[in-house]
């Protein structure tokens, strides 16, 4: 400016030249009513208009018919007169009738508080807008992916501060995005990671071996409510030194762990049940073994009693001998009992009040694995009044598992494979549980001895299942029986003590 400061005339000439020769952006001078007074870049204006066609006309010439109809040519000027440097985007017409997207700036020209006219500059921004539209589409696409993927996504910067927190992350951790953006990501983890996370990032930044980036591992996350959960974390990195972001994708493993735990529990129970089943076999054998020493003891004692009732001439040695033999036999019995106790030791039996539907449910899960695939339809009809039973849960489950498996096997060659499980509260303080199948029934000759050991209608059956069931049910104070309905199949019914019966009486 200093070089041309010599004369004002020279500067105004330059301004005039600048207006006349700069053609890249469209410029207009309007009077206060919007009439065109001058156009820049005569002859090579970007919008091809020439002064001769425009000067004297309204500037609405450059507006689309829609905007003209909406009165925008006047509104724009009124706004520009009110505000300093009014700007907006508009689609402007070229002389050819084609349109381009422009950024228009209108400046009100005032001198001593009087409005003398307007200066309009319009710059073609079609190219920028097109790029912006492409980026918007990309961003929307990315956003839609992030909103949809079940994995939670968290973006952090090089300081470990959260930059973005996806919808899935909000659900998983229980925080709103607005609450955690700007916070250190360590707030989402328990110790020791919580204290060390900043060091992890520093380690990576300083060129250390990546421990998680590109590898992925199972770590522990902490929800807003303070509970911890297992999660699989994989981390990607983008950007350059000093401007890096880390994107973590998180999969919640708690659901999977719960499933695994449930599976382990079921397996443990299955092992327990099969040991109990073996125990039943063992018990039959032991009962027989125990009978031997008891018989011997009884014999010795009776003999001794007889001798003592008429002791004349009998040497005491014989009495001593008999009693010592009896004692020996009781030790033998004691040994057998100890063996039995040792065997049972890990399956301690004690009765508790149990939710009957839960007991049935768990047993059915074990026993009916794969039954549906074998075409068995299971129909359950539980009496809402039959709520609680006083049982050793595992033992009663063994009974149920036995009955249910028998039922499924019995229907293997039936056309109709319906398995009915029902409960019924009885007035005598018992609850009756029944398992009914649509199998071929039980052969008449087996029926009377069905619950005895070593009786089986199954080709490879040991004949112990139902005998164990009877032992268990009777040990619980209940009864077990089979019924053979006229329309086929078999119904097994057993009773258990109703844990609510006493309450009912008190009422």
């Amino acid at each position, binding site marked *: 400016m200093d070089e041309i400061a010599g004369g004002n005339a020279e500067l105004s000439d330059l301004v005039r030249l600048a207006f006349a020769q700069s053609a890249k952006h469209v410029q207009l001078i309007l009077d206060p009513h919007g009439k065109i007074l001058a156009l820049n870049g005569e002859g090579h204006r970007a919008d091809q208009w020439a002064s001769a066609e425009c000067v004297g006309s309204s500037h609405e010439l450059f507006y689309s*018919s829609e905007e003209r109809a909406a009165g925008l040519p006047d509104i724009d000027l009124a706004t520009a007169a009110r505000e300093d440097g009014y700007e907006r985007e508009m*689609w402007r017409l070229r002389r*050819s*009738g*084609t*349109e381009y997207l422009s950024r228009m700036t209108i400046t009100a020209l005032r001198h001593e508080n009087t409005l003398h006219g307007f200066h309009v500059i319009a710059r073609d921004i079609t190219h920028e*807008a*097109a790029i912006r*539209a492409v980026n918007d589409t990309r961003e929307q696409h990315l956003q839609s992916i992030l909103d949809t993927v079940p994995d939670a996504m968290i973006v952090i910067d090089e300081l470990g501060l959260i930059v973005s927190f996806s919808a899935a992350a909000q659900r998983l951790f229980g925080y709103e995005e607005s609450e955690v953006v700007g916070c250190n990501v360590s707030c989402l983890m328990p110790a020791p990671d919580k204290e060390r996370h900043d060091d992890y990032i520093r380690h990576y930044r300083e060129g250390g071996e990546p421990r998680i980036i590109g590898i992925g591992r199972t770590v522990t996350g902490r929800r807003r409510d303070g509970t911890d959960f297992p999660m699989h974390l994989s981390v990607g990195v983008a950007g350059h030194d000093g401007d890096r972001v880390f994107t973590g994708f998180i999969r919640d493993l708690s659901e999977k762990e719960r499933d695994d735990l449930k599976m382990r529990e079921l397996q443990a129970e299955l092992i327990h049940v099969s040991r109990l089943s073996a125990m039943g076999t063992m018990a039959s054998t032991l009962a027989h073994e125990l009978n031997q020493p008891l018989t011997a003891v009884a014999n010795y004692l009776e003999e001794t009693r007889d001798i003592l009732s008429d002791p004349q001439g009998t040497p005491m040695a014989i009495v001593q001998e008999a009693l010592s033999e009896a004692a020996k036999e009781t030790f033998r019995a004691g040994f057998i009992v100890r063996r039995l106790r040792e065997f049972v030791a890990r399956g301690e039996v004690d009765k508790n009040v149990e939710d009957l539907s839960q007991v049935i449910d768990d047993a059915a899960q074990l026993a009916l694995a794969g039954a549906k695939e074998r075409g068995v339809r299971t129909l359950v009809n539980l009496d809402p009044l039959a709520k609680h039973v006083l049982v050793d849960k595992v033992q009663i489950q063994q009974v149920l598992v036995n009955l249910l498996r028998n039922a499924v096997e019995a229907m293997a060659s039936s056309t109709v494979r319906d398995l009915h499980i029902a409960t019924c509260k009885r007035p005598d303080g018992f609850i009756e549980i029944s398992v009914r199948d649509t199998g071929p029934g039980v052969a008449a000759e087996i029926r009377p001895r069905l619950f005895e050991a070593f009786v089986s209608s199954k080709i490879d059956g040991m004949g112990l299942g139902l005998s164990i069931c009877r032992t268990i049910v009777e040990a619980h104070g209940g009864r077990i029986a089979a019924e053979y309905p006229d329309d086929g199949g078999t119904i097994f019914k057993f009773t258990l003590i109703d844990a609510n019966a006493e309450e009912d009486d008190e009422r």
Partner: protein
Amino acid sequence: MSTSLLSSSEKRPKVLVTDDDAAIRRSLQLLLHAKGYDAQSYTTASALLADDDARLADCIIVDYNMPDINGLSLLRALRANGWKGAAILITAYGNDELTKRAKACGYAEVITKPFIRRPILDALQRFCECRQAGDCAHQGGGCAPDCDC
């Protein structure tokens, strides 16, 4: 996401759009610009017809139902002036009858609204490949030999 031709330095194919619906016209212009075409859009069919530059177009995209001139008459007029580029008709009321008439008139494609974005880009790409390969008897599959336009 498809690649943009924005950075391409070779000559951009010139594509003209005319549709009286501003939203469709303008979004198409931005889309085509972003995809690397030299896109110009006319608010009216008569403006396109009156513009000498329109003769340099490689392709035109025309709305069938416009207040001043319908799409078929527009192409007939352009063909009468010797224009040989490829033409795409877009319409909200697509049917077999219109498609037949449009093809007879020299339209290479008839695309029914509202899902015009993908089909237009696909068609343009075909025309351009065809033009580059030079294996096309009529530029961009334009006027059919038995065409009476």
